[in-house]
């Protein structure tokens, strides 16, 4: 009996017996952290895992803030959605300054003057170096009707009295781009998600049933998918836009059409779900669940779809831009949202000529929130994916 089980290389093995105390009933004692983990629910575990993904967490918080912001757009926007300033048409963005001539003044902008160059017919804005227009905060500005409920006029930030403050410039009617972006968030961040939800529910349910049951169910579902996929959205929009009643408000029409698009958009997902399930359903754990007497809905929902979660999350996050910008293509053809409603997509369609890119590039600012939101959703999706990943 030796103290190490390992002899010299090549030497014959001696009999080694561990001398450590041995108690077959001994249990490893657990740290409090382990106990906490052991008694947590699966959701809680996921949340903990999610939290470890800093970027996802940040994205989540960013989106949460954004969604909170759309509740108070009226307050946050320095101007109203339709406030026009005919003296500041196509005004470029304005910088915020803190110091004037080396002295601290607080946030302010320099006043500007517009002259029309009659030769080229361009509006030229010159800063007046001694016209200091300090910004006001929690101030009274354009009156608005908060969510259409009560009148108010308090804004987070407003220009100086009789001054102007166009952080992101103005458009061709002299409307503040920043304010329009803030208002546009309302539509862009909400309605499209509705469409995604509808199409996801349909896609997963129909694709799931077709893939799981196969046979005649699959056959019918596939034919429906074929038919729907064969009808491009643009002619459909054209037809729908033509027959929608005039008296409906634009938002209602848009909502309706988004829903209809959602109702038509599920096919791609359904096919992906179906084909994945066609192979997943052959797995033993599905059989195990069947033998336990689980219903199809449970098998699809608890066993199959989770195995497919990463794909679903990726697809969902990737469809978000489509939904946010969904109306741009339509607006481009003159079928989309109409004033007085606006969205980021609409704002972008307003910048639809090369001259905008050459002369008024700030009209492309709405792409920035779009990019941010899309990135945030994607990173959030990454975090969710990882949280649901058992191997992590």
């Amino acid at each position: 009996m030796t103290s190490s089980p390992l002899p010299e290389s090549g030497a014959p093995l001696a009999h080694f017996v561990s001398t450590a105390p041995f108690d077959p009933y001994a249990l490893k004692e657990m740290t409090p952290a382990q106990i906490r983990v052991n008694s947590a629910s699966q959701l809680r575990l996921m949340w903990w895992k999610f939290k470890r993904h800093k970027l996802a967490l940040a994205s989540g918080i960013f989106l949460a803030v954004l969604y909170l912001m759309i509740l108070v757009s009226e307050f946050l926007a320095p101007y109203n959605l339709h406030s026009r300033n005919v003296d500041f048409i196509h005004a470029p963005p304005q910088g915020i300054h803190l110091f004037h001539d080396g002295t601290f003044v607080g946030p302010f902008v320099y006043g500007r003057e517009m002259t029309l160059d009659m030769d080229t017919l361009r509006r030229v804005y010159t800063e007046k170096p001694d016209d200091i227009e300090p910004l006001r905060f929690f101030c009274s500005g354009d009156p608005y009707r908060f969510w259409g409920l009560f009148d108010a006029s308090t804004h987070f930030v407003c220009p100086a009295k009789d001054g102007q403050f166009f952080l992101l410039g103005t458009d061709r009617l002299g409307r503040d781009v920043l304010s329009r972006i803030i208002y546009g968030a309302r539509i862009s961040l909400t309605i499209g998600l509705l469409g995604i939800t509808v199409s996801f529910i349909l896609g997963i349910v129909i694709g799931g049933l077709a893939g799981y049951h196969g046979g005649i169910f699959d056959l019918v579902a596939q034919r429906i998918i074929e038919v729907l996929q064969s009808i491009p959205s643009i002619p459909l929009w054209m037809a729908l836009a033509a027959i929608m009643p005039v008296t409906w408000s634009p938002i209602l029409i848009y909502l309706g059409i988004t829903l209809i698009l959602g109702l038509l958009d599920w096919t791609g997902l359904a096919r992906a779900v179906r084909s994945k399930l066609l192979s997943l359903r052959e797995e033993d754990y599905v059989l195990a669940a069947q033998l336990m007497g689980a219903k199809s809905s449970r098998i699809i929902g608890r066993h199959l779809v989770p195995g497919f979660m990463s794909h679903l999350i990726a697809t969902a996050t990737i469809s978000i831009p489509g939904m946010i910008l969904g109306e741009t293509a339509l607006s481009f053809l003159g079928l989309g949202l109409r004033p007085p409603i606006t969205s980021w997509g609409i704002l972008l369609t307003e910048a639809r000529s090369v001259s905008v890119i050459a002369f008024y590039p700030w009209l492309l600012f709405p792409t920035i929130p779009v990019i941010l939101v899309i990135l945030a959703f994607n990173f959030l999706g990454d975090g969710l994916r990882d949280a649901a990943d058992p191997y992590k």
Partner: protein
Amino acid sequence: AARRLEPDFLVPLMNAGKLPTAAGRLPKNPRVVDLAAMGRDVGKYGGTARMLIGSAKDIRLMTICGYARLVGYDDKLDLSADILESYEHVDEKVFTFKIRAGHRWSDGRLFTAEDFRYCWEDVILDENLRKGGLPTDLLVDGKPPRFEVIDELTVRYSWDGPNPDFLPRLAAPQPLTIVMPAHYMQQFHQKYQNANRLAGLMKEQRTKSWVDLHIKMSRSYRPENPELPTLDPWRNTTKPPAEQFVFERNPYFHRVDQNGTQLPYIDRFLLNVSSSSIITAKACTGESDLQATGIDFADYAFLKDAEKRYPVKVGLWKATRGSKIALLPNLNYGDETWRGLLQDARFRRALSLAIDREEINKVVFYGLARPSSDTILPDSPLYKPEYAAAWSSHDPDAANRLLDELGLQNRDSDGIRLLPDGREAQIVVETAGESTLDTDVLELITDHWRKIGISLFIRTSQRDVFRSRTMGGQIMMTMWPGLENGVPTRDMNPSQLAPTTDDQLQWPVWGMHYLSNGQKGHAPEVAEAARLVELLKSWYHARTPEERTDIWGEMLAIYTDQVFSIGIVNQTLQPILRSAHMRNVPERGLYGFDPTCYLGVYMPDTFWYGEDIA
């Protein structure tokens, strides 16, 4: 100086003996264009002009801008003979046309009275070809003219009553067709072609009947048939469908400059089909040598900027429309209450007064247009300032008063007026929404009208359904360009001011009534509109110029005072882009379809390339 009288372009053909020299190609008595008198320079031959068009159908621009007509307007809008050597008429009843001797079609065949005869007897009077009967323009009191061939080069049309419209119709952008290349067209005519050959041709052209074949092969307005002989300065050589249409000079064109050089100067026009959205961008990168369509005033700054980088020049012409855009209240609207209001002049006047035209002008037109009602421009000899001023000032108070007077004094909590039956006063304006201009202006008007308690909703739809829906009373108001011809002379037909056709969106049903001779639609129930119809009828019979002037005046007064259409601004500017090397393109001009035919009356055949030819 020894001027070259033959374009290089034609020399190879002449050398090959396929083409005679200039003397052999020109009529004995060509039309001499006195460039000096027009303040232009004599040019030289050569060059290709590129032009961008939004769709293949736009090749008709060449017919419009080429502007070779039997009789045509000059840039002062005076009528004179163009293709014809001369014309004369007796009391506008008997018209005698004299053809230029030796004038040839573009294929070299002589242009004679036979071509008129063929068109009259074998086409217009042919029952198969003209199932619907004669074109209304050729009827006076429902009766066609008598047509006579006086000699080889002289023809005559005579009516019992006066037809003051006849010559203007021949000079119109889309002219009345009374002449066709008989030698060419006969091969497609049942009467002249044996059935076998005809069937073969039909098969070749994939038409179902010889009538279709004849119609297809004879289209001259949209010159899709490269074979069709023409009298225009350039003839199409490309068969559609195509992305690029090549127009080449017509070697037999009948105009010469004062030195006797045959026009046109420019050899070829290349028409490239582009989507309308990038025409501006392309024009700005020097890809067009002459561009007026597809570019808009809003792009002026961008176009102007291109001057720095590319050899192009941009000029601004004055648009001839009565109003750049106007609101047309549908007096035949289906809803009883609304119709009542819309037919009430006070209501229309209130709407008009409420609009702040200065603001619109400033925002959209850099203040360069002129606020005005929908009426004629000062460039017209018939113009009076009061027409433009009628109800076009910004006076919301007066507007409010008018509306109160009308019994719309009740308002809801949002300050929107209530109709007598309790509904909100919401006006839905339909627009084709093709440019942001319409929607921008409407957005501004929405605000203006809110101040008088009227709410405005914008609905964009395809413009092709406007006509039938307006007819059906489903559209309340449309946004549409104002009066077509803003620079009329007393000799031009004032029908645009009266309900005369079904495509006038303010009164299509009444227009239909007139158009169908009372068969369809119904007569105007508004007295002033009915009066306009009467005045129009009396214009036809007016004998003296003064009489016509008076009629025009009264019609214009009624039209503007009644605010049958709500004009916004007119005299807007149209950018005209041209290659910097191109000469003789006027700096200023009137731009419009009718009557100036876009560039037509300014004679693009006299444009030429200076310096090194591109």
